[in-house]
């Protein structure tokens, strides 16, 4: 007799099959076997999802797990646990590790570790250029065969446009998506926050929107020329999103993402020299935040990732200009999406789930992010009404550097299943 799990009475939302109804789901052998009114029979494990939303497990395209190299900041274990509590069942890890993930060994190490842990699924990316140095191409076929799902130089953009074009051709040759952190470094001189009224008020060097726009322009131009599958990471500017919207009409394989900090916050969060608000791209001014929301609504932005970036507190307890870039985000992204996008009716719950699960799965071409019959049972069950206050001390992530600390949000993950394994039950991990 196959293992059977029955999820009853939940509001099942599956953007891939356009389903949004209160119904039951039967899971057998780690896959979705049946959807509809299902009677409980003996031997079934029952999860009561009444008044809760049952969604395909969320997929986060941009996460910094720090292992190998900086296990003091985060490990694969703490990062994947943090992901699960945020409802994220698949994590795409960035390659800025030590050593850099530009070779099979580092990819295989991460996959082996994740498999041993049995928490969230891990999909590593590899660097676009060796050592992320922007000098020569990574062996993309090798890393793909080892299990990498995309190439990206992550926190840096390939500054040499000629090399970027070759990287796109090489990536296309081996059918690898290329993710870019779009930035023209020469356009800002050590900027540390968005350039605007707040940077002027605070006397901090600014990063203008042109820095990102120029990077996006270059990448789009080369993506169209080469036909590479291009994905723009963490979009934060009105101009960049406009260019992406136009490019997508000609070239539909272009995709992009934003992160909660760019739709939930504006640069006034840097007042008081709050170093947890220091990140790249910088949190922008209100007009850009509105443009990000508009692009989420009109579909220009396909995905919501976190850019989860754990750091030691001592790396943030520094003058603003010297503090590390980034904020953790795995444990708050769904709640921030509900609070700042669904509650004010910018997106429907289905659209939010589409951007946090269905679409990311398509970008890295994995057979997840759906509740279709036969699909792998990666499932997140959450209560969209519970209000809570973000308290980094309670995070599973080692990183307590959270720009959302102290904020009130709505939506709490209750249960998580990964390939039918009910690893997170009623807001606690099940002992393995």
């Amino acid at each position, binding site marked *: 007799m196959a293992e059977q799990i029955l999820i009853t009475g939940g509001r099942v939302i599956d953007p891939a099959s356009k389903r949004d109804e209160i119904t039951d789901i039967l899971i057998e052998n780690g896959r979705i076997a049946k959807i509809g009114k299902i009677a409980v029979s003996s031997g079934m494990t029952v999860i009561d999802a009444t008044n809760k939303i049952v969604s395909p497990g969320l997929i986060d395209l941009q996460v910094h797990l720090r292992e190998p190299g900086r296990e003091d900041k985060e490990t694969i274990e703490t990062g994947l646990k943090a992901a699960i509590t945020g409802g994220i069942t698949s994590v795409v890890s960035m390659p800025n590790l030590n050593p850099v993930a530009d070779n099979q060994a580092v990819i295989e190490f991460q996959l082996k570790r994740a498999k041993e842990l049995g928490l969230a699924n891990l999909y590593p990316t590899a660097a676009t250029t060796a050592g992320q140095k922007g000098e020569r191409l990574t062996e993309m076929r090798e890393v793909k065969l080892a299990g990498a799902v995309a190439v990206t130089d992550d926190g840096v953009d390939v500054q040499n446009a000629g090399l970027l074009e070759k990287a796109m051709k090489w990536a296309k040759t081996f059918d690898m998506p290329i993710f870019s952190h779009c930035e023209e470094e020469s356009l800002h001189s050590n900027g540390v926050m968005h350039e605007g009224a707040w940077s002027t008020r605070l006397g*901090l060097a*600014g990063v203008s929107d042109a820095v990102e726009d120029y990077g996006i322009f270059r990448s789009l131009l080369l993506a169209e020329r080469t036909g590479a599958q291009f994905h723009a990471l963490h979009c934060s500017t009105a101009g960049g999103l406009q260019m992406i919207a136009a490019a997508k009409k000609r070239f539909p394989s272009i995709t992009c993402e934003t992160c909660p900090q760019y739709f939930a916050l504006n640069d006034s969060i840097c007042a*008081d*020299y709050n170093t947890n608000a220091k990140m790249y791209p910088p949190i922008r001014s209100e007009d850009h935040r509105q443009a990000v929301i508009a692009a989420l609504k009109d579909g220009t932005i396909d995905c919501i990732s976190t850019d989860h970036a754990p750091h030691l507190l001592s790396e943030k307890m520094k*003058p*603003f200009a010297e503090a590390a870039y980034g904020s953790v985000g795995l444990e708050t992204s769904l709640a921030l999406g509900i609070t700042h996008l669904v509650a004010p009716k910018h997106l429907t719950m289905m659209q939010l789930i589409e951007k946090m699960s269905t679409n990311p799965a398509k970008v890295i071409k994995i057979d997840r992010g759906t509740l279709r019959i036969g699909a792998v049972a990666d499932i997140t069950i959450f209560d969209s009404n519970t209000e809570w206050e973000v308290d980094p001390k309670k995070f599973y992530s080692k990183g307590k550097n959270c720009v959302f600390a102290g904020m009130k949000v709505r939506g709490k993950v209750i249960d998580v299943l990964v390939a039918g394994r009910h690893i997170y039950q009623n807001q606690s991990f099940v002992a393995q």
Partner: protein
Amino acid sequence: MTTSVSERLLTIRDNRTLSTPDLVSIDDLSLADCELIFALAREFHKLKTKKLDLLKGKAIALGFFESSTRTQSSFDWAAKQLGADTVGVGSGTSEKKHESFFDVAQVIDSMNAAAVVIRTQYSGLPAQIAKYTNAAIVNAGDGWHEHPTQALIDGLTASDDFGSLKGKRITYVGDVLHSRVFGSSARLFAKLGAKIRIAAPLTFIPEDVETVFGAEVTHDIEAALSGTDIVYVLRVQNDRGATGDISTLREYSKAYGISEQRFRLANKNALLMHAGPVQRDTDIHHALMTIPESRILQMVENGLAIRKAVLWLLCTGATKSFTRI
């Protein structure tokens, strides 16, 4: 007589304290705070270098993490002439030993310092540190951000000439982008009701400066000077990143340096101000340094008086809430 001098100061003070426990930004000060500081500074000014005992038994640390001549000596003498003991902590070995600024500040604070004066290349560091010390934090210049005691000097000097500054036009000429002097001075003059104008090449103009400071902005120096009551010259801050924002100092000086001819475009009786260090013949033509309208050395003299007023008020101010990290 020391007693009568102190009594006079106490009478002027009239049991008042500042509304802020720290001075990291001009935004910390109310108009009443500014007036109190000015009133006391005028009295301190008369006393020159006279030794007083207003801060006897108080310890003041001077954290000059960036080199300084006038500001450091001004704060040091101000503290000592008020009877406080000072110690320099800026050139210590903490940085070499990778001790964070926050830990250095807490260490000094644990020795019961009454005030810590901070000069740093980092915008915001005094504001960040102020949360973790019982000692009053005095910003003596942070990066491109602010230099509040300098602004108080500017305000005192200008009001000594004009009385009220309401409706007076101050034109800042030069490197606004990298200037903490501008950051504080423009905040204070706006608070005192003056009209702010900026004349600079576009590379020296920060984003949205019009809205942040309510400033009129132009790159036409001649047009900017006309109708001006105070010509405030800001030096080109090659030490703070201005290199590359101009072609050559020679061309900059020709285009924006204040010559006698340019200065005369301003209103009759206009004042010439500069917070120093002056780059003679680049910022200001040599011949202008000693004209009767120049307030450059008077500003330095007022500096001592302003810092005495600020240190006295902050070291005997309201109790402060802080946390340890």
